[in-house]
């Protein structure tokens, strides 16, 4: 089978999974929908492996293949095929996506058991995987945009999955609206690029850019505009400042959804976009700088917010935001392989962290607040180990995978020189913050005095809340509708969850070994054909900077863990030390807890003017102008006219007779005049 056939198969299996689960909604018995969905994604993973093997069978120069099924749109100067592009970058992405998705599907079978929306869930999840695969496999801008939009739609569907919760539906809408802003940016950016390259095909577009479609210098106006608009799209999808406010709210969705979409795959679409469009970005360094700065800013801001959050899922969400900031920064300065490598390792340990968080929340009977958790070490040993593994990987401690990937990004950033040292410093500050907030979360949840739920679990009984509550607002909610499901699954008791988490933990631990600096360059070599024309793809790795970077990274990570230990473990259950710190840094704390007031700012600057405009349009413009003048006026004229005419229909026979005679007389008169 040819490589591109594998590519089409990768797309086909999740699509079939979606359709079968969707149409078999009523007939699929028990858990079969879950196993069906998982199998579909697993088959896609196998097909991706097939594509990988087949791809490596080609010579390096030939590894970018486009396959087209049919003519998708052919009008007015646009000639878009239904085509996929199979090259190392896309194969890398589909491997990551299908691999992690299979494990998450497996996890979900236990997690979503007995939830009334079980079949719907797997249908949506398969649809999401299909969309993401379409996005990364797209061979032209049109399919890319289609995949982009589908992913947004799937995200909306899954965030507001428990749609009886107002908080969930609001979060879904918020996510969708912000994603649409990004979509608009993406489409406009495509237009600016299309204006010069006159083609929507990706490879042809890049070729046109390289052969002078945008002039032979850099930073040509339209290209910069186009790239910045593409960045807008990337920022919205990847939750970077200022389009990031949807991600924490997206934690309203089920935990596996957060794990898949909002950690491992969808939010990495922005990173993929920038990496894919690198020929364009390299000719618009201004846009690259914008990306790098925003990435760095997000990394820091998200890190600081993570320090003050109390909802465990939101801590991990901000951590995601921060790590994506690293990736965006990485691909914006040209560290493509490093950025994508970090994407892969991050997918492993972040998905693992979310899964473990799901297990912990299950043990808490649905409660998500860190303030109510503590001392689960003995009750949830497997979950604890997973948290530790994920946390160490996230904090960049060797030999875990996060260490290698994160430090490589920072290395390349440092090598760029010039003003990029600011980003270098920001990156390491962020690493420190990462370690602190990650282990703050772990220590608070697992160390100290066990809370009542932990004690119950140690005794062998899984706690269930007497009254089901909305974890975000704490209000009582009605689960008679059948969801959220009554079963709270924990890893210790569910084999599928354990298998999934175990495999991810292995990845988190061992994935770094394939790209140790100066030792092996698996990812670099693999991705090279995709970045054949990229400037500075080869890592220069001055040894001095390398050693400094690696040691600094390790030290900062360990320092962060130690600091967290000191504050939250030694400080004790009553959090004496952390409360003291909080009081002393009151203004900073307020800033962090309120998420840097981004939500309020957006509300003030964007939402209220829009709402006011809408209200004005409805009350004044629509009512006065349209209803009364245009419509009312027209109907008024017609009505008056018809009333006037109606007066002739008096019903008097004699009147009609008179009109008849008058008519005859008139006609006769006319003819008399003629003659």
């Amino acid at each position, binding site marked *: 089978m040819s490589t591109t056939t594998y590519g089409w198969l990768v797309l086909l299996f999740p699509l079939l999974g979606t359709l079968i689960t969707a149409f078999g909604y009523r007939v699929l018995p028990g858990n079969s929908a879950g196993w069906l969905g998982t199998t579909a994604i697993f088959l896609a993973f196998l097909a991706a492996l097939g594509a990988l093997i087949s791809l490596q069978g080609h010579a390096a120069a030939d590894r970018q293949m486009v396959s087209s099924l049919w003519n998708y749109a052919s009008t007015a100067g646009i000639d878009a095929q239904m085509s996929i592009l199979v090259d190392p970058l896309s194969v890398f992405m589909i491997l990551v996506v299908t691999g992690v998705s299979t494990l998450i599907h497996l996890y979900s079978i236990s997690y979503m058991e007995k939830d009334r929306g079980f079949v719907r869930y797997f249908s949506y999840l398969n649809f999401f995987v299909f969309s993401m695969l379409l996005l990364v496999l797209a061979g032209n801008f049109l399919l890319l945009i289609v995949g982009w939009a589908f992913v947004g739609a799937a995200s909306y569907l899954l965030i507001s999955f428990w749609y009886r919760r107002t908080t969930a539906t609001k979060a879904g809408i918020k996510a969708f609206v912000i994603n649409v802003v990004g979509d608009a940016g993406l489409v406009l950016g495509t237009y600016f690029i299309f204006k010069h390259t006159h083609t929507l095909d990706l490879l042809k577009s890049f070729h046109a850019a390289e052969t002078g479609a945008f002039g032979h210098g850099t930073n040509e106006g339209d290209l910069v505009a186009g790239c910045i608009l593409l960045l807008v799209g990337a920022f919205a999808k990847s939750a970077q400042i200022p389009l990031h406010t949807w991600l924490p709210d997206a934690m309203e969705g089920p935990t596996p959804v957060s794990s898949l979409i909002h950690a491992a795959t969808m939010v990495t679409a922005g990173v993929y976009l920038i990496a894919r469009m690198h020929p364009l970005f390299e000719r618009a360094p201004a846009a690259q700088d914008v990306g790098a700065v925003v990435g760095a800013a997000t990394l820091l801001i998200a890190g600081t917010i993570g320090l003050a959050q109390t909802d465990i899922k939101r801590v991990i969400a901000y951590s995601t935001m921060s790590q994506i900031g690293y990736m965006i920064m990485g691909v914006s300065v040209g560290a493509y392989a490093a950025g994508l490598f970090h994407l892969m390792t991050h997918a492993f340990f972040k998905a693992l962290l979310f899964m473990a968080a799901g297990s912990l929340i299950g043990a808490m009977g649905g409660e998500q607040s860190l303030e109510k958790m503590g001392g689960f070490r003995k009750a949830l040993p497997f979950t604890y180990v997973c948290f530790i593994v994920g946390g160490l990987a996230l904090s960049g401690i060797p030999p875990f995978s996060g260490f290698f990937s994160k430090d490589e990004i920072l290395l390349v950033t440092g090598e760029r020189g010039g003003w990029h040292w600011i980003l270098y410093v920001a990156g390491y500050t962020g690493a420190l913050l990462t370690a602190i907030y990650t282990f703050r979360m772990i220590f608070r949840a697992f160390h100290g005095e066990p809370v009542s739920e932990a004690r119950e679990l140690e005794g062998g009984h899984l706690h269930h809340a007497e009254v089901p509550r909305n974890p975000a607002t704490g209000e009582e909610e009605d689960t008679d509708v059948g969801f959220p499901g009554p079963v709270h699954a924990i890893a210790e008791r569910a084999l599928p969850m354990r298998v999934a988490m175990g495999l991810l933990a292995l990845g988190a631990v061992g994935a770094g070994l394939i790209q140790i600096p100066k030792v092996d360059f698996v990812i670099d070599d693999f991705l090279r054909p995709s970045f054949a024309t990229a400037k500075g793809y080869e890592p220069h790795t001055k040894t001095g900077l390398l050693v400094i970077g690696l040691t600094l990274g390790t030290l900062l990570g360990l320092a962060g863990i130690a600091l967290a230990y000191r504050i939250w473990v030694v400080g004790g259950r009553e959090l004496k030390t952390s409360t003291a710190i909080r009081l002393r840094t009151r203004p900073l704390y307020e800033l962090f807890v309120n998420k840097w007031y981004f939500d309020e700012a957006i509300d003030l600057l964007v939402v209220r003017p829009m709402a006011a405009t809408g209200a004005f349009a409805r009350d004044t413009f629509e009512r006065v102008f349209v209803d009364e003048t245009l419509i009312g006026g027209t109907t008024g004229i017609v009505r008056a006219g018809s009333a006037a005419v109606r007066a002739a229909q008096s*019903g008097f*026979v004699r009147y009609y*007779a008179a009109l008849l005679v008058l008519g005859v007389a008139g006609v006769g008169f006319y003819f008399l005049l003629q003659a």
Partner: protein
Amino acid sequence: MSIAWYLAVSAIVFALGAVGVMTRRNPLVVLLCLELMLNGGNLALIAFSRMWGNGDGQILAIVVMTVAACEVCIGLGMIVAIYRRQLPIDVDELRELQG
């Protein structure tokens, strides 16, 4: 007398009939005036037939008389029905088809 005289009589009868249709309120009388107009037309037809010398006008006059008879039949039937319903026999009052 030349044909013109007959035509003059026909015109006068026709006009009188028209006046009657427009003026009278009793539907029976209205129908009678309608008959008058028809008769005026008949006279004109016969006169012209005489002028040309073929019988077409006469045939047409017979047909007109037939039609007049049918129309009278129906019209009077309607008036009888109206009377039976105890509606006023007055064309000004019978104006349901207004507006």
